[in-house]
């Protein structure tokens, strides 16, 4: 709830950001359609088959991909399985609490899930070991480590990178029905490069990649995922309301920014 002072400090900040926005400016000096710097930390951080530790400005996330073997869903016997999970770790923000994923965490996990499904990025049919019985399960666990706004784009980018880096351990099916790793690996078949772009609206102005202060002050928030062909693969109006033209304009910006981000991630081929 916060004390009286906190409340008025927050509303002063909000006023200040609105003021800036109405002049086309942002507190950290960025242009309205400018993302914060993306850094990819090098090293070995998890026991995942794929991983990425990524920062977007002062926001930091860590994604690990585990590949397991299990049974397919009854209605898709010839397809592997993708599962996403988001943990808003209490280390990332004073407002995050330990416990099962809350609605924000669930929304982000499902949004990232749709980004990959909506773009048909993963060739699930290559993840079948024995049709109808054994398939690879790809589990994407997304950890928010440090929250300075726009976690969702950071998590989506890190997930994309982690999936692109994932090496699936080939297994052989034993006579007793269990499986044993063969020692070989193959790269997870990721065929597309869906990239997430989030926008805040403050005082009628759209701004890309909102910081935490901007998110808190925003009248409305939306996230869209665009693929290499400029198609929109996933969309989520998260809070507030947008005019249809605002949404269309944001999509144009996202399409325009796609190559720059893909390049920064090292995913721009040719």
């Amino acid at each position: 709830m916060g004390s009286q002072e906190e409340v008025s400090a927050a509303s002063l900040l909000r006023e200040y950001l609105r003021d800036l926005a109405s002049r086309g400016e942002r507190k950290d000096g960025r242009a309205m359609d400018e993302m914060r710097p993306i850094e990819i930390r090098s090293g070995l951080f998890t026991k995942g088959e794929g991983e990425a530790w990524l920062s977007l400005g002062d926001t930091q996330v860590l994604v690990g991909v585990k590949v397991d073997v299990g049974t397919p869903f009854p209605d898709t016997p010839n397809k592997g399985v993708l599962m996403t999970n988001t943990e808003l770790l209490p280390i990332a923000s004073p407002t995050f609490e330990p416990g099962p994923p809350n609605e924000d965490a669930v929304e982000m996990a499902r949004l990232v899930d749709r980004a990959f499904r909506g773009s048909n990025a993963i060739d699930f049919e290559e993840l079948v070991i024995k049709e109808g019985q054994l398939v690879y399960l790809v589990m994407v666990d997304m950890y928010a480590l440090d929250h300075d706004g726009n976690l969702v784009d950071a998590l989506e980018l890190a997930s994309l990178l982690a999936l692109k880096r994932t090496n699936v351990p080939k297994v052989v099916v034993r006579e007793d029905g269990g499986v044993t790793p063969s020692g070989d690996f193959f790269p997870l078949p990721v065929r597309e490069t869906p990239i997430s772009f989030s926008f805040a609206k403050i005082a009628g102005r759209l701004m890309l990649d909102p910081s935490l202060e901007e998110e808190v002050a925003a009248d409305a928030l939306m996230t869209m995922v665009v693929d290499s062909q400029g198609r929109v693969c996933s969309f989520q109006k998260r809070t507030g309301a947008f005019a249809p033209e605002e949404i269309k304009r944001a999509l144009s910006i996202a399409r325009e920014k796609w190559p720059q981000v893909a390049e920064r991630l090292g995913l721009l081929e040719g």
Partner: protein
Amino acid sequence: MKMPIYLQEPPEILITPEGVRTDGRGPHDLRPIKMTVGVLNRADGSAYVEWGGNRILAAVYGPREVHPKHLTLPDRALVRCRYNMAPFSTEERKRPGPDRRSIELSKVIREALLPAIFVDKYPGTVIDIFVEIIRSDAGTRCAGTTAASLALADAGIAMRGLVTALAVGRVGDWIVMDPNHDEDMYGDVDVPVAFLMEDKEITLLQLDGPLTEDEFNEALDLAMKGADLVYEMQKEALRRPYLVVERSVAGRES
């Protein structure tokens, strides 16, 4: 241990070259819709909506005291929403209780309605919105949002205007209105949309792609057209509470 008995086969074709869909509709037709307001006695506001094979009850309690108290917002109303599917709303019985999908949809519906509510008028209170899916047949979040908007109005909550929701989608090369169960399961893209009808702002938009930019813009425009039709029914239902407002809204015929 239970086992599935209703594994379904996809239809051979979802839409003919002439644009005829599996339920006989044209690409821009809505399914039959019925709306009734004021169907429950205890709730402060309520609505019952039949939309195609969907059956949905929405109810509103509030503004009322917040429990637990520490959630109270001093300067405005807290708005909570629960989207819930009945165990008997699906082919295979659904386990009661929230799952990830219903947690997300509860948020999505709340955020679709929130911009319409004058929350400043009810500081320190809570408005509870409940959307109960008792029969599910594609498009429940949109039908549920539409129903909840009626229940809010029935409860006398001060609003900027009604919220009207419906889905559009892509099936092959067609952008279609209000996808049915087959299209939802086996179609290409589903796009649920909600509008705050006063100023035509979008308060709900999701998409499970891919759509080209042109298709995306076409989908938004089609959704707007469908919303106009549904909005008229909502207004009519509010004018005649406790009576069923019913129409099969086919674009071809209107």
